């Protein structure tokens, strides 16, 4: 099972889409709200070298934005 972390803000719709995508595919994830969690925000910037959300970390592979195809590849999900 991959270790998945998502850095998000509560108002970000692409973050919601990513989380729904995870839920639909039975992917467990850890979430940090970088709007309020400054330590998590620093981690996100250090990993992605940018400020936009969502940032998704899959076993050290960093995906910026909700890139469904890329997530499917990294998580080894069959294309529907």
């Amino acid at each position, binding site marked *: 099972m991959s270790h998945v972390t998502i850095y998000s*803000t509560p108002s970000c*719709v692409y*973050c919601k889409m990513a989380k729904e995508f995870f839920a639909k595919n039975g992917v467990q994830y850890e979430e940090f709200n970088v709007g309020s969690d400054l330590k998590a*925000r620093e981690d996100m910037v250090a990993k992605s070298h940018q400020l936009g*959300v969502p940032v998704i970390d899959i076993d050290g592979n960093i995906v910026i934005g909700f890139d469904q195809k890329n997530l499917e590849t990294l998580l080894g999900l069959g294309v529907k």
Partner: protein
Amino acid sequence: MYDLIIIGGGPGGVAAGVYAARKKMRTALVTGDFGGQSVVSAGIENWIGTKTISGFDLAKSLEEHLRAQKDIEIFTGELVTAVTKKEDGTFSMTTKSGKVLDAKNIILASGSRRKRLGIPGEDRLDGKGVVFCTTCDAPLFGGQDVAVVGGANSALESVLDLIPYAKKIYLLVRGDALKGDPVTQDKVKTHPQVEVVFGAVPQEITGDAFVNGIRYQDKGKVGTPDETKTLAVTGVFVEVGLLPNSDFVKALVKTEPYGHVVVDPATQQTSCPGIWAIGDVTDTLYKQNNISVGEGVKAALNVYDKVKLG
């Protein structure tokens, strides 16, 4: 070979999809995701039949309605990158992931995308303080000074989204007046955290790893010389309007100078037989979710008339 391929999953594309499926045409719909540009909106208050709905919930209800149809194939996470017309009059299209799909008819519902400023620093610092989705990233600018560029509804809404977080918000407006809903204009103009700068033409977004400022030309009063000014800001929110997503069909259909596809408003047909276009990608006068839906229905029924006549 499909009877119909619909390109786009906004309100117009979904409306066309529902009607086409119910007419049992062999239909596919190809889209990145559902909901169109409104998906990032916190609250849509003019979607007829619903007092208020978030863009996210609207997208979900559109997707659910489409997926409830039996006779349609749906490809999501996909972008059509090229369309060609073959000698027999049918079409072939290629997607970003390399899929090739063939169809007798196309409904183009590809909508529009954010216009960019086209100034130095904008691309380099994209995501590093240059923001194209305010609702997403506003919470990251808590206590900071930021600039919003633009003067119409989307810029005004961007300012309102930032007020709970940013310390000071400069609104840089190219002209000498705001456009957009008067109610929203008043909220922005009277808010103590907001400073509206008229006659401001952005020149460069500055910063090394992240944005540290924006340089603009201040056109000042008529008859006085222009001045270059700089604002120290950590965020630049670009809200300067939209461009139609028509690049991949420009060789096939007639477009007007801004790239909007020219359609016959009675049928939504384009200049190319077999291609219809609906919603924001077209030269329709008003870009509205409700209007796109009507146009989608119109196009699907007109395609059906053609398919039925064979």
